[in-house]
């Protein structure tokens, strides 16, 4: 019974993810595209739930559907001319064929790989992920956070009005 429910949930989530991902490229209104992208993120989170990865699923909703998509919406709102138009690019055919090619390669790899079956019971994944991030993978983790800080400082310098920057520099001199 459990297996049946998981299979049904998987197919529902997979169809939701793929259809909404396709719609992101098809719809004309850019805001609609971002909203479909959010739906796709939520579908991926559902797929994580069927894999017993509850921490990753919740973080997927929190970071992707909650924060990153909001960032996209905000940037669309600040560029009103582009908000109504998601169409008419001259690269549509090459990009579509590239996407189909990548899809074929990925599905071939997924089907051909001899996946190891995990028979262990899944416990709480949050603690495991935390230990892994701060013990064996601490260097990549810190490098990623430094990268984010650098990006943030760069963004602040870029948007600072010229007169304020001049005043701050004058204070330091």
């Amino acid at each position: 019974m459990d297996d049946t429910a998981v299979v049904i949930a998987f197919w529902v989530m997979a169809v939701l993810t793929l259809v909404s991902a396709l719609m992101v490229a098809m719809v004309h209104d850019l805001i609609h595209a971002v909203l479909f992208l959010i739906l796709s993120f939520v579908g991926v989170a559902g797929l994580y739930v069927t894999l017993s990865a509850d921490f990753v699923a919740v973080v997927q909703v929190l970071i992707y559907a909650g924060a990153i998509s909001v960032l996209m919406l905000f940037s669309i709102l600040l560029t009103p001319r582009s908000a109504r138009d998601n169409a008419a690019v001259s690269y549509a055919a090459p990009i579509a064929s590239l996407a189909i090619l990548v899809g074929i390669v990925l599905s071939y790899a997924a089907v051909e790989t001899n996946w190891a079956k995990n028979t262990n019971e899944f416990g709480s994944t949050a603690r495991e992920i935390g230990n892994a991030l701060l013990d064996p993978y601490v260097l990549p983790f810190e490098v990623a956070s430094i990268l984010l800080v650098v990006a943030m400082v760069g963004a602040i310098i870029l948007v600072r009005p010229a007169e304020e920057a001049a005043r701050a520099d004058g204070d330091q001199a």
Partner: protein
Amino acid sequence: MTALLLPFLNWYDFDPFRDLYNWLDKQVDPWLVYLISGIIGCTGILTFVGLGALINVWLERRIIGRMQVRRGPNRVGPWGLVQPVADAIKLIQKEVLQPDLADSRLFNLPPILVFIPAMLSFAVFAWAPDMVLANLDVGVLYLLALSSITALAIFIAGWSSNNKYALLGAMRVIAMMISYEVPMVMALLAPVLLVGTMNVSGLVAWQADNGPLAIFVPLSLIVYILSATAELNRTPADIAEAESEIVAGYHTEYSGMKFGLFYAVELVNSLAVSAIMASLFFGGWALFGIDDFIPAWLIFILKIYVFYFGLIWLRGTLPRFRIDQLMGLAWKMLLPLSLINVAVIAVEVLIWEEGDFGSWILAPFALINIALALGLLMLFFRLITAKLYRLPRRVILVRDIQVPNLPAPQAAVALQPPAATP
């Protein structure tokens, strides 16, 4: 006689469904028992939330009425108790309008979408020691993730209305959400660090043993209360629907029951925030051992309504923030406060773990944290704020548009009789 009295002697252990589940367990497959218990739990929670929304309308209007020295609704039924029902009937009868140029595919979505996270958040609360609908290991993160979806629904409402005021409200919601998400996550990180679990029922069980977390992490409680009221869009922070500035913000164009859903979801969300406060900081169903004599869920509901009263009090007392004040509060006050808090708690947890102390060490930690909270609050809200907020400051979101200089107004000109036309 004793046998007859027995159900009443331990009435606090009232759980009519336990026998049902035990009986079912012998009759049918485990998954069917799981399904039935899930359906019963969902029905119970949805009933609580639906009834809560109705009762909260009455409570809110009556209590705010009293706070503003007026009577509040008192005509429909005894003490105006049936007023919410009358309101709902009125809202259902009203014509549902939709602007001609509204994005019709998106316009009908938000009133439904906004209700889903509000309902879902009630699934993870521990109503009693063994009364949790979804015992998630990542309960705290789940609650945070849901609150971000609410803001998304509100944004869709503002965008699809095709109305300047609605769009302004939506932009304010997004800006506010980006700002307040950060201190909120940081504030909830501290109790999670101290207890070592993100499971809501685990947090409550820890508090039943060691006392409420509010005395161990007072700073996170304060940061959480301030950022939660901002995320709720209630009056001290309701810049998204500020009726004296932008008509009604994101729900300007919604009428009838669609507006009613927005109104109800605000009350349900306040109930959810009160429940989070009660279970994460004030011990949930645990109340100094009294939970052995009263049903634990009754204590939890009582605590929820105590904090809900606090939210109503806040709404009835404080005027609205300006938008720059609200943004400044998040970035200049709450974020540094919560970062300091997390660092201090992390050091304390490290001392506790590495030093092999017993749980007695929590008492000095609590004293240190309370002293630190008082000191930091004094520092931030007295010394720094006083200088920062004396004059209105402008938030620079977009580069200024240069307006050509207008001629200086001349008061005398208007009073002179018009010159004779040549």
